[in-house]
């Protein structure tokens, strides 16, 4: 390209420069993964064994015991017969359409991912809410986590950790965790200052303020974050299956390549059903814990 064309063409890096730049970086990463891959991989071993154990448990236990246990949990959390009945029907339908095993696999990995996202996300959200400094550092990271295409980091992760559950869990968490962090932060920041001041005046420590006032009052917003995190986690099921995570994602992929829409749709619906179950149970549980909002319905 002629040099004088900068008026119409962007004066970009020459191909050669760009090439060597890319090659250097690629090489560096390759070296890094060669060097430290095993060490890093071994860090995740406990998690991996847990994941495998949990999946085996769900699959090898007879379906009606699993079904009973799930229903029990749902009822315990929500105290709602209607919801429990809905869960029963959808799980039976899933089983009837022959997706029981895949659903159990997805259930096992998504449960772990969601719980981990919430367990990691809420403290980070709290940190962000309490320090403007932390917020200004974390926000761009969250932006990157949400918009950097999973494909870009999946391959490096696979190179580092191999295919399978661990990179799957990492990918899902990276993608699913930002909403709960962001909305925890927002919820806490929106808490009424007068109420907080009252707590301070009575000598509440930072953590008493947090657990006694800020978190309870931020609950509706945090729950919206958890809802989004659950949605994102389940939206990632297919992407996770691209790097060898078994479950409902695989039939979806298969159906795409072969244009079996109904197969895809059925498995997609099973994913949706899981999402709705997770979401409704968590939301009902949270709502039960917030008696003061009775009458008004958030969410």
């Amino acid at each position, binding site marked *: 390209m002629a040099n004088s064309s900068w008026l119409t063409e962007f004066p970009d890096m020459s191909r050669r420069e760009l090439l060597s730049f890319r090659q250097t970086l690629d090489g560096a990463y390759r070296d890094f993964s060669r060097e430290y891959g095993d060490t890093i991989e071994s860090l995740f071993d406990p998690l991996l064994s847990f994941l495998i154990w949990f999946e085996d448990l769900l699959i090898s236990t007879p379906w009606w015991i699993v079904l009973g246990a799930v229903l029990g949990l749902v009822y315990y959390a929500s105290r709602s017969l209607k919801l429990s009945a809905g869960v029963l029907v959808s799980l039976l339908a899933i089983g009837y359409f022959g997706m029981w095993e895949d659903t159990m696999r997805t259930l096992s990995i998504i449960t772990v991912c969601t719980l981990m996202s919430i367990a990691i996300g809420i403290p980070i959200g709290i940190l962000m809410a309490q320090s403007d400094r932390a917020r200004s550092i974390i926000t761009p990271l969250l932006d990157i986590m949400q918009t950097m295409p999973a494909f870009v980091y999946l391959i490096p992760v696979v190179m580092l950790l191999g295919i399978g559950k661990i990179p799957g869990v990492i990918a899902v968490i990276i993608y699913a965790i930002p909403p709960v962090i962001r909305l925890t932060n927002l919820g806490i920041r929106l808490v009424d200052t*007068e109420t907080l001041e009252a707590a301070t005046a009575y000598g509440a420590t930072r953590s008493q303020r947090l657990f006694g006032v800020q978190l309870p009052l931020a609950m509706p917003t945090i729950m919206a974050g958890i809802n989004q995190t659950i949605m994102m986690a389940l939206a990632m099921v297919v992407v996770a299956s691209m790097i060898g995570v078994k479950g409902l994602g695989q039939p979806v992929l298969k159906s795409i390549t072969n244009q079996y829409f109904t197969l895809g749709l059925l498995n997609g619906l099973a994913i949706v059903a899981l999402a709705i179950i997770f979401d409704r149970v968590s939301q009902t549980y949270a709502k039960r814990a917030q008696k003061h909002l009775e009458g008004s319905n958030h969410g």
Partner: protein
Amino acid sequence: MGNTEQDILIKIEGLYQIFGKTPKKVLQKVKDGASKDDVLAQTGHTVGLQDINLDVKRGEIFVIMGLSGSGKSTLIRHFNRLIDPTAGKILVDGEDIMELPQKELTEFRRHKMAMVFQHFGLMPHRSVLDNVGYGLSIKGLKKNEWKPKATSWLDTVGLAGYEDQFPSQLSGGQQQRVGLARALCTDAEILLMDEAFSALDPLIRSEMQDQLIELQETLHKTIIFITHDLDEALRLGDRIAVLKDGKLVQVGTPVDIVLNPVDEYVTAFAKDVNRAKALSVATVMTENTDKVLGTTVREARKSFPENQSYAFVFDHEGYKGILTKKTLASLQDSDSLDGKLLDVSSIAPNQLLEDVIPLSLNTQFDIPVVDKYRQLIGRLEASKLADVLAP
């Protein structure tokens, strides 16, 4: 009151509070004497407090009054450092609370002070009972430990039965009482009360006032009380501070404020007060009054004051009644005074004028003022009473 040497519990020195983006920059302007309105117009900063110097004594009820927006709430928030001053010192028990590290500040707030907020500051997600127990639960007490106490305070403020409601289900005054119970439940030494009774009806309000006075007398709490109700201020206050535009205009006893206002502002402020309710006999009576001592006419003749048409008669038991010159003249030296005296009751120096006005109206004589040792210490002249009531 005021007579016994009390030690100073809270000391405020040179306190300034300026609201806005760059308070420190505006501070000098304020120190140079720019008025609150000017500062607001020129810099967009609001002067909350300026150059406050103040002592609160241990065990007193210290009332803060002043126009709306004069900085009362701002001032009271400094006592437990809910806001940091732009400049100045706050000493509690001799300790500069600006220097307290976070942990000690928390301890200080837990044990020293409890606060009633102007806007109640209840926790919407806690039931009424849990709100009341908040101060104790935060100190680490278990619910079953603080529950009896909280229940009993709720009962005291008249909200038994509402334990399980949430604040949003209560009326304004009920919410205020929950805030009150919460503060009282903590056993703090100092109570900060920002218009704590403003939403209460007169019956409950006067009950609460009694409660407060009792608390202060039995437990020697120090109470800082903001109110707009002069009668309340006069009833409760050992001393009253009057704020104007963030400046302290006058600090003094209720009588000082009513009878010796330092400027027109305080005068206007005190104008509407029900003086009959605010002032005691002691403030109006004429001291050093002559009396007649004895039970016989003879004794009476000896001590009857010369240029008076009547006199107060005492025996060793105390006040007996009024003897007019005319009656005395019509009697024999040996007569007893029994049955000859006019029956006009005596009054005590700490009685409110309100109580003695009917007496004064019902008689054309002055009324004798008698102390608790049954000694005559003065008399109440109707004309003086009239003067004080209609300044």
